[in-house]
């Protein structure tokens, strides 16, 4: 503010204090008095001292040159930096960002955060997309679920479908979400993965008997699941597979699973995309190493390994 303006302001203030009348405390910097939003909100104004036209032009030319040089250089660095970044570096950057996003998600993750459940009349037709690993005929009689890494078990734990059906049954009406962007609402019935893990506890990271509820942090951090033929396989973080809405499902909409929907046993969970909800499970393995995953493989596109909600 110039000295002139200050003096004037002081005069205004002085006038106010002497007469008890008030004028608006701030002078209008913008024309149009109070009908101007700028004055209503006391928008400041930054003006240089008056300059001759030539001087003003000279200053603007210099500012313009500098501004466009810096801006242009920044734009070129941005464009060519991204274009010329080797594909390998770019792929690594994006994959590592997925892993970073995963850690951020896990920071805010809670098994108490539940996906919404729906009413039976909200069920929508179940959609089919992919059956890799669950294509041919399956001998239902011969099918067994193999679980590796169970405590107190020398070899693999082998379960029949009846063994699984005898475990506590859970039903839920949840939304199945495909990574492509579509979804449907379905009723699933099966065993909570955490109930199977409680009935047949995995070895914990110290080699003892794992405790799903009391010491979930000591469980092996990952679970690997594959179809009997090994054609389709997924990796889950133990945190998400123990979510109360992650089921090993054997029924869809009150009917036994059809082969296309993953008979005899599949994952059903609103905590991850459909690509993680493996059908026709043959093998489950607790592991401390991050398992491979069909769609996370760069050859299959390099989708997010975590793919979690």
């Amino acid at each position: 503010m110039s000295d002139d303006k200050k003096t004037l302001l002081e005069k205004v203030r002085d006038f106010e204090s002497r007469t008890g009348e008030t004028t608006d405390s701030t002078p209008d910097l913008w024309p149009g008095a109070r009908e101007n939003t700028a004055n209503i909100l006391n928008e400041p104004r930054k003006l240089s001292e008056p300059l001759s036209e030539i001087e003003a032009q000279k200053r603007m030319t210099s500012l313009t040159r500098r501004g466009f040089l810096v801006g242009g250089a920044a734009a070129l660095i941005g464009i060519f930096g991204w274009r010329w970044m080797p594909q390998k570096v770019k792929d690594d950057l994006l994959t590592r960002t997925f892993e970073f996003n995963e850690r951020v998600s896990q920071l805010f993750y809670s098994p108490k955060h539940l996906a919404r459940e729906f009413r039976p009349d909200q069920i929508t037709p179940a959609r089919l997309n992919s059956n890799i690993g669950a294509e041919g005929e399956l001998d239902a009689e011969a099918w067994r679920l193999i679980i590796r890494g169970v405590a107190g078990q020398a070899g693999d734990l082998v379960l029949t479908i009846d063994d699984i059906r005898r475990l506590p049954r859970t039903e839920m009406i949840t939304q199945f979400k495909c990574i492509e962007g579509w979804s449907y609402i379905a009723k699933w019935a099966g065993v909570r993965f955490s109930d199977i893990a409680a009935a047949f506890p995995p070895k914990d990271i110290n080699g003892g008997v794992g405790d799903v509820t009391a010491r979930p942090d000591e469980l092996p951090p990952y679970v690997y699941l594959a179809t009997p033929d090994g054609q389709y396989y997924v990796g889950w973080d133990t945190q998400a597979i123990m979510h109360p809405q992650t089921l090993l499902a054997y029924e869809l909409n009150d009917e036994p699973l059809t082969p296309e929907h993953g008979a005899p046993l599949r994952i059903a969970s609103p905590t991850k995309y459909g690509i993680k909800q493996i059908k026709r499970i043959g093998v489950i393995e607790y592991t401390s190493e991050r398992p491979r995953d069909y769609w996370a493989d760069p050859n299959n596109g390099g989708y997010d390994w975590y793919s979690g909600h």
Partner: protein
Amino acid sequence: MAKQIEKKHSLATRWMHWINFPLLAMMIWSGLLIYWANAVYSLRIFNYEIFHFFPPEFYQFLDIPYRLAEGLRLHFFFMWLFTINGAAYITYTAFSGEWRSLLPVPSSFRRASLVALNEIHLLRSKPAQGKYNDAQRIAYTIVILMGAGSVFTGLAIYKPTQVSWLTALLGGYEWARWEHFWLMVLFVLFFAIHVLQVAVAGWGNFRSMVTGCDTVDALEPETSDISEAMP
């Protein structure tokens, strides 16, 4: 005639404005790669489809099909930069006081319609304004809200279980995706109008977003604001 150089845009605002341009472009581009995998939205009137997003030629021309994974990889990288830049802008604008140039007041809506009438040459005079006219204040405030809306609808689609409260607030997963899509359409419309308006406003205005400054005719001493404030 004497001139004054007016500082119109701070350095921070200019950087964040220009950085936002490629970031938003990347978000829209990667979003299209994702959307193609389930391209279900269209513009309808009475069940009659006026325009389907998007016609096959559009996808072929831009080479969009079968790039879902790539789209997701880009989207979930650039989302951080877009969000950080937007959050930095909002924080900066709030604390620097620059919101005074940007926010509308209730009476802005009346003045904004006068601005619009003036722009289509139905009204000769236009309402007094500061750095921005009232239509700009409303538009620039809405576009910031749209940015925040994109972040929140996006989060509701990305983590619908962990933030199920947010997804529910937005009407559920399917609605959140629909809202996320239409915000993108609004961004594109905003961009088109913005570029048109900048072209109409001319070089001095455009340059001020690069240099921060523009020249104005020096204020005459007798029309100085102080004397008007005197009772």
